[in-house]
């Protein structure tokens, strides 16, 4: 076992240490999963097999990352280990085993299992707000686990609780210990969850997507915290995520799952540098990288049906000073009002004095964390919110000050794709009705037949079968629904398309497909995009120019390559430094 030196070459960099360890600390694993097979009963006749007989080990004192997209079965696996699956409709095959300390956890009586939960093996979840009990104080919930497993009570328990809060980095623990979860921020809530989980010095910490719901800067802090705690307490961590970049930062071992099966597993170095499985390879390549910009993102099909993407030429992006401007936004502001005092109002400025120009045929990326106001900018330009101040000049006219009936003519020229593919299509309409409706409203097409034909054409263009016309949204996956939303927008032949976190809710492979589609449409129709996202890598890939927002204001605007290489403002620098680089990123940086 290699010696532990404190820190690596860079502050907060853990990966350099990771690479020094090449094998397990001791030869017998802490937990052994053998032939885990889990099914769910959907109704009286059908069962659905979510996990199809997987086996892997969790070595002592190391971090194992369980990676997969939605539907891969990774969360189900982790819940099964602690017996937390709903007993009414989950069926675990009797030959499955989860071995810990010589015992099969799946076969333990509940009383025994309870002694292990929270003490030997503990778990933290994705949504800290709902995972904490809202009606009990933070201190009470911490002390509960101490009462249960360590028999502590009274002042002793309270003191230990405060120590734990301090250890996880909560400021002013004496005050916070009596707070309720709703009074803490998302990052602080997750820290409290972690404190509860490590309170009894567990041997294994299972972390189920703990940072997915957090902003990227907070994510970095939480990842560091977990890493530090892992080292300090010498425990193992099973880290479940869909984000390969995160995995690259923290994992010693990687297990890749797809559709209930393990596609690849092994030490991180092996998986990242020489992946053997096609799906793993595809996953590694599909995600937009910060240092490259291929003309088309590779998609899974490229790998499964062939040797890989052949076209590796890169696309140049940038805005030149004499590019034509299609939209000129000046001093945009939006305030929300809430009641205060007896008769007063309180103003919350979501957007403060934002000005920018959108070049024709190009993409402007709008980046920020939650609460930065980026989504509000998009909605206000669409007049879905009424702007408080400012103008948006399009073809010589101010879109924001027109009357609603005047604006009707311009509505078709600027369209929006929303984030949540499951909420943006009316579940009671067929796909055909969804696509044809804008045509009916704006009088496009001279007959029903002509509109139907146009709809078929658009479905083809976005890569869906024509028969989709007759189906309902619930029969389609997230990526397909976004395509339908895109087709709906295209019926009106807009000039400007606002993509409001349009790929954020999609799996990595699907994300690549939709990004490619958007790029193809821009190339063909000369559309101008405003691409709003919190995902910095995606924004860099698709944008010509990037605008960083924080707290309602623009922090910096520059061409995308420029801003990533030489960020000028401190906030931008901090934002960029928080991006998980993944395995390759770390290596690239380490060898600079």
């Amino acid at each position: 076992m290699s010696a532990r030196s404190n820190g690596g070459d860079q502050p907060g960099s853990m990966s350099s240490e990771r690479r020094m360890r090449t094998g397990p600390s001791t030869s017998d694993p802490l937990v052994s999963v053998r032939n885990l097979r889990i099914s769910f009963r959907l109704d009286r006749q059908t069962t659905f097999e979510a996990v199809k007989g997987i086996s892997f080990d969790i070595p002592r004192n190391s971090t194992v990352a369980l990676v997969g997209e939605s539907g891969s079965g990774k969360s189900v696996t982790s819940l099964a280990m602690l017996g937390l699956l709903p007993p009414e409709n989950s069926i675990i095959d009797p030959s499955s085993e989860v071995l810990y300390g010589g015992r099969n956890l799946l076969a333990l009586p509940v009383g025994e299992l309870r002694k292990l939960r929270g003490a030997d093996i503990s778990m933290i979840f994705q949504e800290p707000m709902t995972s904490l009990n809202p009606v009990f104080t933070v201190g009470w919930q911490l002390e509960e686990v101490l009462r249960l497993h360590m028999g502590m009570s009274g002042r002793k328990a309270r003191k230990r609780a405060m120590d734990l809060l301090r250890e996880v980095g909560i400021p002013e623990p004496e005050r916070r210990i009596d707070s309720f979860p709703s009074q803490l921020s998302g990052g602080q809530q997750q820290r409290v969850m972690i404190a509860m989980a490590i309170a009894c010095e567990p041997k294994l910490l299972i972390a189920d997507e703990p940072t997915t719901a957090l902003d990227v800067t907070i994510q970095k802090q939480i990842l560091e915290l977990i890493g530090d705690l892992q080292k300090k307490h010498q425990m193992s961590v099973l880290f479940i995520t869909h984000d390969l970049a995160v995995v690259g930062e923290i994992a010693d071992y990687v297990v890749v799952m797809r559709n209930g099966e393990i596609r690849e597993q092994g030490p991180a170095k092996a998986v990242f540098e020489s992946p053997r499985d096609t799906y793993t390879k595809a996953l590694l390549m599909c995600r937009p990288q910060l240092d490259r910009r291929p003309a088309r993102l590779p998609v899974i099909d490229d790998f499964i049906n062939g040797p890989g993407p052949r076209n590796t030429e890169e696309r140049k992006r940038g805005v030149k000073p004499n590019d034509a401007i299609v939209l000129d936004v000046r001093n945009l502001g939006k305030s929300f009002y809430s009641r205060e005092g007896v008769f007063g109002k309180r103003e919350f400025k979501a957007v403060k004095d934002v000005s920018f120009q959108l070049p024709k045929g190009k993409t402007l990326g709008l980046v920020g964390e939650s609460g930065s106001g980026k989504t509000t900018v998009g909605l206000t330009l669409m007049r879905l919110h009424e702007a408080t101040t400012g103008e948006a000049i399009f073809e010589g006219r101010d879109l924001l000050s027109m009357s609603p009936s005047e604006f009707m003519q311009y509505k078709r020229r600027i369209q929006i794709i929303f984030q949540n593919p499951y909420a943006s299509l009316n579940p009671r309409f067929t796909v055909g009705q969804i696509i044809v409706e804008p045509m009916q409203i704006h009088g496009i097409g001279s007959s029903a037949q002509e509109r139907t034909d146009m709809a078929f054409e658009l479905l083809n263009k976005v890569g869906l079968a024509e028969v989709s016309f007759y189906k309902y949204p619930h029969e389609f996956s997230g990526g397909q629904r976004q395509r339908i939303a895109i087709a709906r927008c295209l019926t009106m032949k807009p000039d400007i398309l606002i993509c409001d976190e349009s790929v954020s809710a999609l799996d990595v492979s699907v994300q690549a497909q939709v990004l490619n589609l958007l790029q193809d449409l821009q190339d063909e129709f000369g559309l101008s995009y405003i691409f709003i996202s919190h995902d910095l890598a995606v924004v860099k890939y698709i944008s010509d120019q990037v605008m960083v927002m924080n707290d309602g204001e623009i922090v910096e605007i520059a061409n995308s390559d420029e801003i990533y290489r030489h960020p000028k403002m401190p906030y931008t620098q901090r934002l960029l430094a928080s991006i998980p680089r993944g395995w390759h990123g770390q290596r690239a940086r380490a060898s600079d």
Partner: protein
Amino acid sequence: MAAYIVRRLWQMLPTMLGVILLVFFLFNWVGGDPAYVLAGKISNQEQIDNIRRQLGVDQPYWVQLGIFIKQVITADFGASWSTNERVSNILMTRLGPSLTVVVPLVLLATLISIGLALAVAYVRGSFTDRAVMIVCTVGLSISILVYIIVFQYVFAYKLGWFPVQGWGDSFWENLFVYASLPILIGLAVSIAPDLRLYRTFVLDEINQDYVRTARAKGVSENQIMWIHVLRNASIPIITNLMAGIPGLLLGSFLIERFFSIPGIGREVILAVERSDFPVIKAITVYVAFATIITNLLADLTYKAVDPRVQLK
């Protein structure tokens, strides 16, 4: 907080005015001239004219409205048209008996229903759960009238365990002798709907993420139910209880009528039968006001009980 209360009090005024208008509309406009009603009860024409003049029946509507508002503010609605007792006196004396029946009833019903709801939620999905729910559904489908008739017949008339009707003078005698059977009937009728409702509240909580966290910490199912879930489910339960408080003032008027308990509910029925407008108007207006004020209290209680709520 103080600002919130002040703002709410200010907002209550239009509602109270609306209630006054509604009652006025019903009784002065639709109801119209009460002469025909009074004719059957008071033979003295001069007396009738007197009353009509007091009510301002021959005056324009806005004058009548003014008279009514004055009555509301001064809490003086004159005298009952049938018994000539002062309306305010009627209200004061009838409140006690109503509460004597209804308050113990609500306390017992809530405690029993919560206990049963937790027990049933514990075994959710099982045969017991479904059987209990079906029994509740059937129980709910039998009219309260039937319960009253049958219980009164079996337990009071036939078996003689309870008095058939009546009311006494001392509080304790009332509570234990006269109110017992009414409370029993009230329980039989209230537990079924309460149980269904509370079961839903409890089940909503059981499916929450924090329950999964508690299990992951090693908390036992019992503790989860009785400590974690109950504390959260108590929020909608308390809110529901607070919303039902104004109904308490009315008493269960069917029970009061059958058992001749001199409560407000029975007063209402008698007043409606006799078309005794002043009594009905007074009770309606005051119960409405009590409801409005109780709503504010309910919201404040909600804030006290649920740390997530911020009153604005």
